[in-house]
């Protein structure tokens, strides 16, 4: 293998692959990727719930942010009321954290209900509705955060600690670390993705949802209540946005900052498109985007060795800031390339973005 590293260009590629393998198997790149992908994947599930039933949702960012805020504040208040409660041995659940998560989910559902009302009942433009949600969420959480100036915290959920022998297994140990050495919300993502994927394509709910997203009138004529289904799906989708928010303030971190979602809701949207509106595909997209982010962090702090490393450090010496930013820009660039169709065209549910008017109603 090493011999091949000297070949021009191909050598670089091979060195890079070797670096990747090394990084994935020996560092915590894998668990970190899954963690960073969690809010993206959850946001994407929210997007899929909406868009599969024909509602565009560009307000995921705002839904997440609201949920993060509400979840954090509620958890903090409960924690102050009962500071003594013992966290559970696994995951470190406390009443405060559990109630906080529920509150975050509730907040996600509430904002989603607003979106559903605007899109389904009011028949407002769906893109405006999402924009409004983003703007209000940013303003309102910022306003309240400054007013309340929270100083406390309810702490965070703990990652699971898988048995040592699993993690230490040669070759596959990193897989266990990736999927097990993480917190409960991160872990739940995999479960949600699989469940939703199965439900979408195997269950009655999934069949009806897909039909409503493609051809609502056809669904209507076989007795499916299109509006009700859209309401239900959009509001249920809020659960995922809520969990994503809870992940931000109750699992991965333990405080709230203004605008802390930092575009994650929008990357989630891109993951939906990337995954062609399937949960598994979107999850893959989230992993890909966030792998590039995690890898960027890794390469900068632990550059590869050999020619590749020499090459990279040459660039770094000449253009340190551009070099740095190139890695930071990677998820966005990747998203853009993916959108521009390098992975092939992806077609949205046919009825997405169009309000449904029942026949005979005016």
């Amino acid at each position, binding site marked *: 293998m090493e011999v091949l590293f000297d070949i021009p260009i191909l050598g670089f590629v091979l060195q890079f692959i070797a670096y990747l393998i090394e990084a994935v198997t020996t560092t915590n*790149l894998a668990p970190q990727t899954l963690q960073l992908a969690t809010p993206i994947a959850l946001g994407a599930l929210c997007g899929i719930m909406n868009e599969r039933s024909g509602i565009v949702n560009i307000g995921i960012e705002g839904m997440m942010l609201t949920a993060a805020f509400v979840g954090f504040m509620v958890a903090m208040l409960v924690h102050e009321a009962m500071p003594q409660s013992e966290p559970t041995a696994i995951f470190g659940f406390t009443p405060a954290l559990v109630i906080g998560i529920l509150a975050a989910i509730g907040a996600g559902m509430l904002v989603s209900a607003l979106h559903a009302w605007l899109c389904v009942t009011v028949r407002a433009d769906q893109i405006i509705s999402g924009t409004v949600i983003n703007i209000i969420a940013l303003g309102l959480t910022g306003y309240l955060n400054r007013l309340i100036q929270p100083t406390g915290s309810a702490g965070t959920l703990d*990652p699971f600690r898988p048995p040592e022998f699993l993690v230490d297994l040669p070759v596959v140990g990193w897989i266990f670390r990736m999927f097990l050495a993480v917190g409960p919300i991160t872990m739940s993502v995999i479960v949600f993705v699989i469940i939703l994927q199965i439900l979408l394509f195997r269950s009655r709910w999934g069949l009806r949802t897909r039909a409503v997203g493609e051809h609502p009138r056809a669904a209507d004529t076989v007795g499916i209540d299109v509006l009700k289904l859209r309401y239900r799906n959009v509001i249920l989708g809020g659960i995922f946005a809520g969990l994503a928010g809870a992940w931000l303030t109750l699992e991965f*971190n333990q405080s709230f*900052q203004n*605008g802390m979602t*930092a575009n994650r809701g929008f990357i989630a949207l891109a993951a939906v498109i990337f995954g062609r509106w399937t949960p598994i595909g979107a999850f893959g997209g989230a992993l890909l985007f966030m792998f590039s982010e995690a890898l960027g*962090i890794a390469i900068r702090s632990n550059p590869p060795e050999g020619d590749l490393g020499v090459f990279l450090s040459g660039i770094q010496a000449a253009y340190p800031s551009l070099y740095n930013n190139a890695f*930071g820009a990677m998820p966005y660039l990747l998203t853009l390339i993916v959108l521009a169709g390098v992975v092939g065209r992806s077609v949205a549910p046919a009825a997405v973005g169009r309000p449904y008017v029942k026949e005979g109603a005016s």
Partner: protein
Amino acid sequence: GPGAASTAPSAPASVAPPSEAASEAPSTEPSAALTPIKVGVVTDVGQLEDKSFNQSSNEGALAAAEATGGTHDVIVTQAIGDYAANIQTFIDADFDVIVTVGFLIGTDTAIAAKANPDIKFVGVDQGVCVDAEGVPDPTFACAGDAATLIPNYQGIVFAEAQPGYLAGIVAASLSKTGTIGAVGGTNVPAVVNYWRGYENGAKSVNADIEVLYQETDPNPSVGFNDQAKGRAIAGQFIGQDADVLFQIAGLTGVGVLEAACDANLVGIGVDVDQAVSLPNLAKCIVTSAEKKLKDTVQAVVTSVASDTFQAGTVVYDAASTPPAIGLSDYHDNAALITPEIQALLDTALDGLKAGTLDPCSPTKCTVSGT
């Protein structure tokens, strides 16, 4: 987020002697010796509660106003284009002292100060550079003597490299793995200064130590505000065996310190005593690299009331009285700092005070090379 962090000139040489006023003890009771003053604060773009310079400067101004029996107001700047208008609002309302925060607002502060000689201006993180006419000098020749040309304006700058250096000594001394990390928010001067000082300080203890560093995001409103990414970077550092983490990233740094806590490692806070400002994380914050923004601003503002105001750029560093930089209390982690480490720190601090120790050496503290 903090639209821009603070700054200091790259060479904290002898620009001006430390302010005498800085020795004024802060008091909570209005003192009869002081004239009550109206203090206005114009923050940099971002949020007031940034647990960093906007907040500390504002608290200092508030304390000073209360000490003189005066009043205090604050305007949070929404956009760079609003600096001048925000300053003007205080001028229109006949404020006595206007404190502006951040290097970007320096030009507008200098212009306003020149135009309103009866009002005192305090610029946090602002080196005053004017030409012979007293106008902000775009060529940075700085030919004019700011102290005489604009006698009602003091630019406060801190030598962040100095506390960074001390933090580096602590980090290198506590590290068992020989790898330490620092997470920056956005590579603004203050961040770079802290980081370079940290690196130099660490290497002074262990020349072979590996110092990992990473900027969170070039957009300050993300860079100082994305704790999830801060935590991710910290996680990466921990994965590479870093066992001491220094946060220079505002609210992003909260994520860094959380990561340190969760991994039972040592964290070092920044700007203020973060064991106090982040009580949840106090258990793993061994100390914080402080620049005493609040105290300094309070002292400078109070100097207006006591008629001891000093104009021009004033550098606040270890040599200021009382020292304007340093490490904060070790609190519950005092046991970690052995007498040997303390001795190293004391020596370094003496060197910094005497000006014999350059925290920006061998690695230069410049914005470039980040």
